[in-house]
């Protein structure tokens, strides 16, 4: 199996020039037909670079976080608006339409943690923002763009889950009530009912802090990575109870980020061991280990068309085209040709 002569997979291309470690990545445009697709990257030096995936060059640089690390980037579905969170305790809302790049609004953060925020935005004007709150274990929910505080989610006194590490707001198709998934410092993942301000369910997935997770709301399944040597897959049943389905052992400890591809076929993890690992989402079978970076991989992101980007401490962003998503989704995910490649690199 390992004797296959196929060379290890290469990135499709590599973006250089951030001149500092890359901590946040986000794909933008392209699929919705808004011109050429863009990739946004946030760096340790506080800059947000906007890359054109067509020319593979930075088209603009946003400087708004006073030289402090940018930890989270997210665009809003309508309008060309970008949210960026920085370690300078600011959350900026940028207007990117028609080549503009100006801060139109900001929210002050009150927690110095590592937690990335999350938004829940539909087609309406108003949207919801979840961000770490004032107390070290609190999560604050704001209604945007008015910035009115909806509530503060504080765990019960006896729970002591530690700081929230990662957040995800979502809404079940059947139920309009917003829900919040939060990964905590003690390695647990909790599901909050935002309107009732209570924890629906909480499950301990890891023994180390949860560093990142992604949730597939269709399958009601999520996957989380932590500082330890394992990935945890957990699910949510109809009673909104979380339970760990399985854990997947890794060779090296430390997962900085986990992302499921929009078509829910594969997922990618950003490893402290400089590697990006790709798994089959349904079976959690390891598919490939992407070795390119020479420093910790801090973040991964998937584009709507399936492109994978990984940002690393070596100041490079690698772009990978893996098991390309075909326009007709009926095709089997892993054809024989792709299977070969898997064979070569399944060994982590």
């Amino acid at each position, binding site marked *: 199996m390992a004797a296959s002569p196929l*060379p*290890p997979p*290469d*990135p499709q*291309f*590599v973006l*250089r*020039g951030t*001149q500092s470690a890359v901590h946040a990545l986000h794909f933008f445009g392209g699929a919705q037909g808004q011109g050429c697709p863009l990739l946004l990257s946030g760096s340790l030096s506080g800059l947000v670079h906007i890359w054109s995936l*067509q*020319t*593979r*060059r930075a088209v603009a640089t946003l400087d708004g976080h006073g030289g402090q690390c940018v930890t989270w980037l997210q665009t809003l579905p309508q309008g060309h608006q970008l949210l960026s969170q920085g370690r300078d305790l600011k959350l900026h809302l940028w207007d990117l339409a028609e080549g503009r790049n100006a801060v139109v609004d900001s929210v002050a953060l009150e927690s110095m943690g590592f937690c990335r925020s999350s938004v829940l935005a539909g087609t309406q004007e108003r949207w919801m923002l979840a961000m770490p709150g004032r107390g070290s274990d609190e999560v604050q929910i704001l209604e945007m763009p008015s910035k009115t505080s909806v509530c503060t989610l504080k765990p019960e006194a006896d729970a002591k889950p530690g700081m929230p590490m990662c957040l995800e707001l979502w809404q079940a198709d059947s139920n309009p009530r917003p829900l919040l998934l939060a990964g905590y410092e003690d390695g647990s993942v909790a599901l909050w009912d935002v309107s009732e301000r209570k924890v629906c369910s909480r499950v301990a997935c890891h023994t180390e802090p949860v560093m990142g997770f992604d949730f597939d709301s269709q399958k009601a399944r999520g996957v989380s990575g932590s500082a330890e040597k394992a990935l945890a897959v957990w699910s949510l049943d109809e009673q909104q109870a979380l339970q760990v389905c399985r854990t997947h052992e890794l060779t090296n400890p430390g997962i900085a980020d986990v992302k499921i591809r929009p078509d829910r076929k594969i997922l990618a993890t950003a490893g402290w061991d400089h590697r990006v690992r790709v798994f089959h989402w349904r079976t959690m079978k390891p598919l490939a280990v992407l070795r*390119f970076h*020479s420093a910790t991989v801090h973040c991964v992101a998937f584009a709507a068309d399936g492109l994978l980007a990984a940002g690393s401490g*070596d*100041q*490079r962003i690698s772009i990978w085209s893996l098991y390309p998503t075909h326009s007709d989704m009926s095709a089997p995910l892993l054809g024989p040709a792709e299977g070969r490649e898997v064979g070569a690199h399944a060994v982590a």
Partner: protein
Amino acid sequence: MAVFDTPEEAFGALRPVCVQLTKTQTVETVERLRAQLQAVSDSALQELQQYVLFPLRFALKTPGPKRERLIQSVVECLTFVLSSTCVRERELLQELFSELSACLYSPSAQQPAAVSEELKLAVIQGLSTLMHSAYGDTVLAFYEPSILPRLGFAVSLLLDLAEQEKSKQIKVAALKCLQVLLFQCDCQDHPRPLDEREQKQLGDLFASFLPGVSMALTRVITGDFKQGHSIVVSSLKIFYETVSFVMADTQLERTSDAQPKPASVEPRVAELMVHREAKWVKNTSDKLTVLIEKITECVCIHPHWKVRLALTELIEALLLKCSQSLVGSAGPLLKALVGLVNDESPEVQTQCSKVLRHFADRKVVVGNRAFADILSENLHSLATSLPRLMNSQDDQGRFSTLSLLLGYLKLLGPEVNFVLRSAAHLQRLSKALIQVLELDVADIKVVEERRRPSGGLSSPPESAALLQRRYFRFFTDERLFLLLQQLCQLLGFYGDLYLLVDHFMELYHESVVYRKQAAMILNELVVGAAGLEVENLHENHIKTSPEELKEIVTTILEEYTSQENWYLVTCIESEEGGEELTMKQSGLQAITSAAHTCQVTSFQAFSKPGPTICSMNSNIWQICIQLEGIGRFAYALGKDFRLLLMSALYPVLEKAGDQTLLISQAATGAMLDICHACGYDSPQHLISQNSDYLVNGISLNLRHLSLHPHTPKVLEVMLWNSDASLLPLVADVVQDVLATLDQFYDKRATSFVGVLHALLAALAQWFPDTGDLGQPQEQSAGEEGSHLSQKPAAPENTATAEDIEQFLLNYLKEKDVADGNVSDFDNEEEEQSEPPKVDECDTGPDVEPPPPVHIQIAKDVMERCIHLLSDKNLTIRLKVLDVLDLCVVVLQSHKNQLLPLAHRAWPSLVRRLTSDDPLVVLRAFKVLRTLGGKCGDFLRSRFCKDILPQLAGSLVTQAPVSARAGPVYTHTLAFKLQLAVLQGLGPLCERLDLGEGDLNKVADACLIYLSAKQPVKLQEAARRVFLHLMKVDPDCIWFLLNELYCPEQLTPPHPSLHPVQLRGTTGQGNPYAANVLHLLQELQ
């Protein structure tokens, strides 16, 4: 002479002469009448026209034999009258016409009378004038059916004259007159255009003459080329005017099949009448086709351009006016036209293009199915015979055949796709093109010629043009190649590009035999498709859209630069090539690894069943063509090509560093093309602006070095051509390179050392050390030198005791300095160079921030160099020493980085100096010299401790050997080593500013080599050592030399001093005499 304005006066004047003429018809009388007529005004003469004409006509009509001279003057006189007056009555016109034409006819011989040329000319003139003098309506009335016999007679007479006559003048006049008769006169006297009915009437009438006229004229036209072009030109003109008039589609389409009963026509005349019904048209057209074919064939190759020009007019007229009636002739006509498109005369070319454009505008071809069919048919048959023609014809023939093909394509325009869609014909066409474009690949020079190993890639493009000349197997004419290029471009422009590209791509894949030609064709197809060099004759034709074109170009590019088409074996002997081969076919390992010298392997190559010279030549050309293609694509896409640079620039740059001259030139050419197309000033600009794309390719390829062995070379080229702004981009790649190097120390060190060299050279250039130490030191050395040369001037006879005392004091002080006892109040001159240097490197260490990127890189590289210094490969060791040298230069201002590294490099550097190849020894000396300049103190003690004893020792022990050896000795390794050490020592000692003791060591070791018994080269080297040493301590050396050989008795500078006796003997037998003398002279 009086002028008679009124008819009365004129009558009075003319009457006597007329009367006399009626009575006695002599030439004199006619002349007198003519003289009188001169004085009569035109209006008066008009009144008296009939009266004056009467005696003249009478003279003509008088029966009986007449003297020619008389007839001639009568005709001339008649002509004069007619030229000044108008003929108003039809009867008069008819009668005059018959009478005049009868003059040339001898009833007995049934042929033109054998009369004098002057008379013939006069009659022709007369007829012509007569027709001009007739009023418009009168003329029309004249052309009634009843005139047919008489008109026919005149026409045949004129044709006879035109055909048979010797005199060119008569011929021309006859043709001119014929034109008048056939209503084709182009003078200004016939202003009224004919209406339809009249045209038809005339057409019916002339139809009767058509056979005669066309045949006679054809004979004239196809006659001897020497008869003069004007005759052929006017014959052609009459031919097409007549044919296009009689056979005009507009007239024929209104002809009914039933013959209208001609009113009041004699039966005899009615017989002559022609009715132009369908059957007649068909018959006539068939016959005309034969004639037209004859004419086109003959005239196409007529040497005079005006004739060919007239032919284009003929074609235009016939095709425009008789497109239906003469449909059968369209083939030959179009063929002729198309063949003239590339005529050698620019006039004909322009006219031809004009006609073609006209046709296209009027949609003559495209709008007319029949024509399009004919053209397609022609193209079909040409395509079919093309391979054979290309094979059998000579260059001229090929040229015209291809011109024809080109013309068809131009005419057909978008319709060409009908032909192309037929697989068989496309096959034929492509085979022919491929065949004719076959290159001659026997030239060995192409394989042999090597790029000059320079760093920069901008080899002058003008020399490239010279060398890129291709030799084709089947033709030598450069024009043919241009024609073929045009042809392909036109195909690309009008043809279905997808279809064509697919087809030629298939051929490209099919066989290596077709590959080069297919690539050439593909290149031109794309250029053509962009519509850049093509003259569009078909305005409604839609060009290939830029997006489509980009897509197609991307596909072709991918193919060109794919592994199997881009990395071809073009040479055997190179180190990389050798490695490649071993990678691919491990069986050859023994051969390739055994030989590193070019010569040996290339000879082996001949006997080895590996790549032959031919196949390598072919590969070289293929790469060149593909490179050229990339340039062409850039040209075709313009600025749009910028996006493709992502994938295209890397391969091009890779080839720019290729060692085959031709390839690197082609790559440079392609880069220039890209620069032009994408708006970059120079290749340097191109590279620096797109270094991110290059870096991407480099870093990805470095991951698979075995598949991409040329990657280091690209990095090298990029480094040579960029500036400091590149550094942030390459920083990580450099780390990759070093990491890869660590993995492949044994296998790929050569190429990597090249990169490291380029990198360090670039760093040294990008970050010049601001507080440069080298410069002032050189200066101070110079000063020292001058100071030294002045010094010996001091001990002169005029010296005083004080002088001597001062001198001694100075000497002591200097000696102190030389021993290293540097004190603060030291001598100015020396102080300036040394202490600041110390300061500079001392301030750094304590507050050192993390070193800048370039320093870090230089540090990392230097570390690798330490390992590589002991590589088995000589060239690598040499290269590494160069790199090391540059590392020292880059690191010079960061002593705390440099010194530890120098410390680590020291042991292996020592080994290079003491026990290695002479070349390496020399190079190592150079490094030491640089190192000495940058960290002198550190080095001095090390050198004196570790190296000097060994070197001096070996010099001393070798000296007797070399002194005794014969002439063969200079070829031994020992000699080379001696030489290298001697050559290296001098500059180094100077740079290190050695102390007295060490200096003596050096001098002692070298002194022996000043002996005349030593080989000359060693003596020279030793002399040079001493020259350097003199700069450090002249007095000491002076003393030493004098100890060896003392040329003169020394007289003390002051009587109070003792005379000195030195050990050096002055005898003639001293072997050191010559060299020491020479050196002492230098010292003076």
